[in-house]
């Protein structure tokens, strides 16, 4: 028996759509009960499971709203149906084969609580073997929509900082109920599934609401527990033209996410497309340190990358990662690293003023567009202004000090 807590005023409505696979469904529901503080209600929409999952839900689950459809309406419509039953401020869409880890929910809620300009937030998705499945998604020309970081080491610093993303998979996605309603929910045009989560996030972006990847929250996702690989491919093939037709104009200005060996800059260009204000801090171990915390709070929408040329192990600086700062190092030298980020940055700060000229050639070749600065506060302010950044936030205006 899986018993959900009785919560008087749930703040979060967790919506799960099931289609068979009771073994995973029960495990997913059990993980919610075990790893979630009682601030939520549970809504399960069963899409006429071909096995006994529907009956098992009725039999084995207490304290949840169970809706049983007499036919499979697909993920998006099923999720919309679950949302109609919700009373929470927030909706959390969770796949029936997604298992939440301890402490998963507060970091997601924090993001929405603190910044009204964020519309959706997603956790780090892991494969069952612990490798990374998704650190947010990115779109590219030609209707490309892919999971960033698939197959990588989940603890790699490249995937451990909070950042704005094009979309995140609805395998685990927290949105405000009012924003979900405002865009009309998941578009039924995508039928049984695929691309409806991309569509939802792009719809939210269209209303000025960001989607954020929050790696402080972790969910393990099995994938494919309710569909076969062939059926998944078929659904994706049917949905892709719908997606392409709807978003052709917006996607046209994007780089293709292809030929990455020849054009390595395309990957970070797509990864950071939603953070066009970008600051690179080159840290050599000499010279005054740039005030990263202050940069992060005064320009919360900017992507800040701290490149450690002094200490390759510093890339795991958890404190900076927690601020949403990219912390990087390179064994291939500055030139090779910059080549993969050609024309990427708005401002480049070389902390060691004396060493700045050493890098002139490489910076001139790979970041000619960037405003150069040293690390003093006055110089940084001038550099941001020259780069066209919006005026820095005052303390009163900062959205709770949490960078999306």
């Amino acid at each position, binding site marked *: 028996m899986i018993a959900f807590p009785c919560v008087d*005023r749930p703040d979060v409505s967790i919506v799960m759509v099931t289609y068979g696979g009771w073994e995973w469904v029960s495990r997913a529901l059990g993980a919610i009960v075990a790893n979630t503080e009682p601030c939520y209600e549970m809504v399960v929409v069963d899409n006429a499971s071909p096995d006994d999952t529907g009956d098992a839900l009725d039999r084995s689950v207490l304290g949840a709203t169970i809706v049983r459809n007499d036919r499979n*309406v697909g993920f998006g419509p099923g999720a919309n149906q679950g949302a*109609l039953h919700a009373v929470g401020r927030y909706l959390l869409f969770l796949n029936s084969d997604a298992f939440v880890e301890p402490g998963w929910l507060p970091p997601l809620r924090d993001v929405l609580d603190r910044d009204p300009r964020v519309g959706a937030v997603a956790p780090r998705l892991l494969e069952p073997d612990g490798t990374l499945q998704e650190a947010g998604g990115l779109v590219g020309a030609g209707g490309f929509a892919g999971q960033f970081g698939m197959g990588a080491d989940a603890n790699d610093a490249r995937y451990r900082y909070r950042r704005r993303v094009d979309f995140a998979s609805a395998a685990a996605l927290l949105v405000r109920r009012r924003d*979900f*309603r405002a865009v009309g*929910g998941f578009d*039924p045009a995508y039928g049984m599934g695929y691309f409806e989560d991309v569509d939802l996030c792009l719809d939210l972006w269209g209303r*000025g609401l960001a989607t954020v990847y929050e790696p402080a929250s972790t969910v393990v996702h099995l994938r494919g527990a309710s569909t076969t690989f062939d059926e998944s491919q078929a659904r994706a093939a049917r949905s892709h033209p719908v997606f392409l037709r709807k978003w052709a104009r917006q996607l046209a*200005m994007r780089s293709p996410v292809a030929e990455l060996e020849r054009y390595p800059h395309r990957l970070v260009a797509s990864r950071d497309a939603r953070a066009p*204000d970008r600051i690179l801090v080159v840290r050599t171990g000499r010279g005054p340190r740039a005030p990263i915390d202050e940069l992060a709070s005064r320009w919360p929408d900017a992507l800040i990358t701290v490149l450690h040329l002094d200490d390759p192990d510093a890339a795991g600086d958890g404190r900076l990662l927690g601020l949403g700062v990219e912390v990087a190092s390179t064994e291939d030298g500055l030139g090779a690293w910059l080549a993969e980020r050609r024309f990427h940055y708005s401002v480049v700060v070389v902390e060691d003023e004396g060493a700045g000229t050493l890098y002139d050639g490489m910076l001139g070749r790979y970041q000619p567009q960037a405003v150069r600065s040293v690390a003093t506060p006055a110089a940084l302010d001038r550099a941001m202004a020259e780069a066209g950044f919006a005026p820095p936030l005052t303390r009163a205006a900062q959205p709770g000090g949490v960078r999306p």
Partner: protein
Amino acid sequence: MARHEIQRRCENAEVRAFAPLGHRHPVRSDGGEPAEPLGTWSPTRAAELAGLTDCVVVTGELILNDEGLGARYGMTPGEARARGLSRFFVEALGAELEMECPVVWQSVGLTDDDDPEVSARLRTALARRTLVTVRDERSRRRLERAGVERDVVVLPDPILLVARWLPESVLSKRLAYLRLMGWYPAEGPVLVIEASAQLRPAIANVASAIGDVEGPVTVVVAELTPYDGTGGLADELAAALGCDVFRMPAIAGSDDIAAALGAAQAGFIGTSTLGATTAKAYGRPVVVLDAADVAQGSLADGYRAARAAADGGKELAELTSALDRQFDRVVEISTGAARRRPPGPVAGDGSPTQIEAMRRALAHRAERAAAERATFADRVVDLEAVVARLEVEAGHLEHWGNSQAEARAAAEGELAALRATRTFRWTYAARDLYRRLRGGNRLGPR
């Protein structure tokens, strides 16, 4: 809708929604935007609310006795009276505070409950009220029976302006969803019938009214106010009509109801004023049932007349203008009250909507610029590859050039050596003769 209309006119205004329990009693219909709780009425609480605001707008359908209102929230009569919930709607802030902080009744809907105690409270409270409008004749008559002696204007519920709030893109998305779920027909004229207790006795008349209509009509039964679900009534209606009907679930949201009514070419029959007003907003024929309509024939006549009259145009335009004037007046009252207050913190320059629009435009421009840089980077990579290739070719050419120069130098050296030999010098005359015999010029000097 009221919040939307006020905010549209006064973008710097902060509009806060309050309800008896607010977010302490979250419901599906709050759409994820629960109101703030009003709490328990007291002079202190009234003063607190008056301090927060320049104007109080009371709107929606009201239940004016505490027991009835409390029952909606699962309270006992004693608890409801202790909280004084209805006082927020009738007495509002109290006479003294209302002089500084005006209270407006905006398209309020009243029930037929002729409680003498409530009537007395209404007479006292509404005598001082800055503006009083109710949403239908029934509500106006209620005030008349209560002895309220002041002009009371009938204005439709602001839901009449729903098309301003609900974009067409969202409406069509929800309609597609309703059709996919089998709750709404895919095509053809639709008549939405409200599932309600008043309609149950009139099912035969409804069926007769529908049968009177020329051409096919598909019926959709929807629950607009809390009832018993659509199942029983839908079954009875289907039996009376001799064909199946579509059933919208009770959980359908307000945007789903709007989508259903907006697409209902054959109109709406029901008791809900909100439902009727929404259908009217989209130019659909409307029949609002009351007890008199249960009589045989009148419903069919009424429906026929409604279909004939429903061009939407003139009446809708007049009602919309009236509502616009009302909201203009509400904003005028609010800003007047705000000006009379002592100076406080000054709001920033520029309306929030303008600032947000500029922020988004700048963000889009920055994204576009970054995307253009990435495309430019592609071109630079391509050109660098071309340059690298050309450099290699140039290197090859230089090497070939060098080797050719070396070969030429070697050949010239050999020729010079040959010319320096005695054989070459002694054979000059013979070579010269041979050349002239071949038609060539004389050889050069020896």
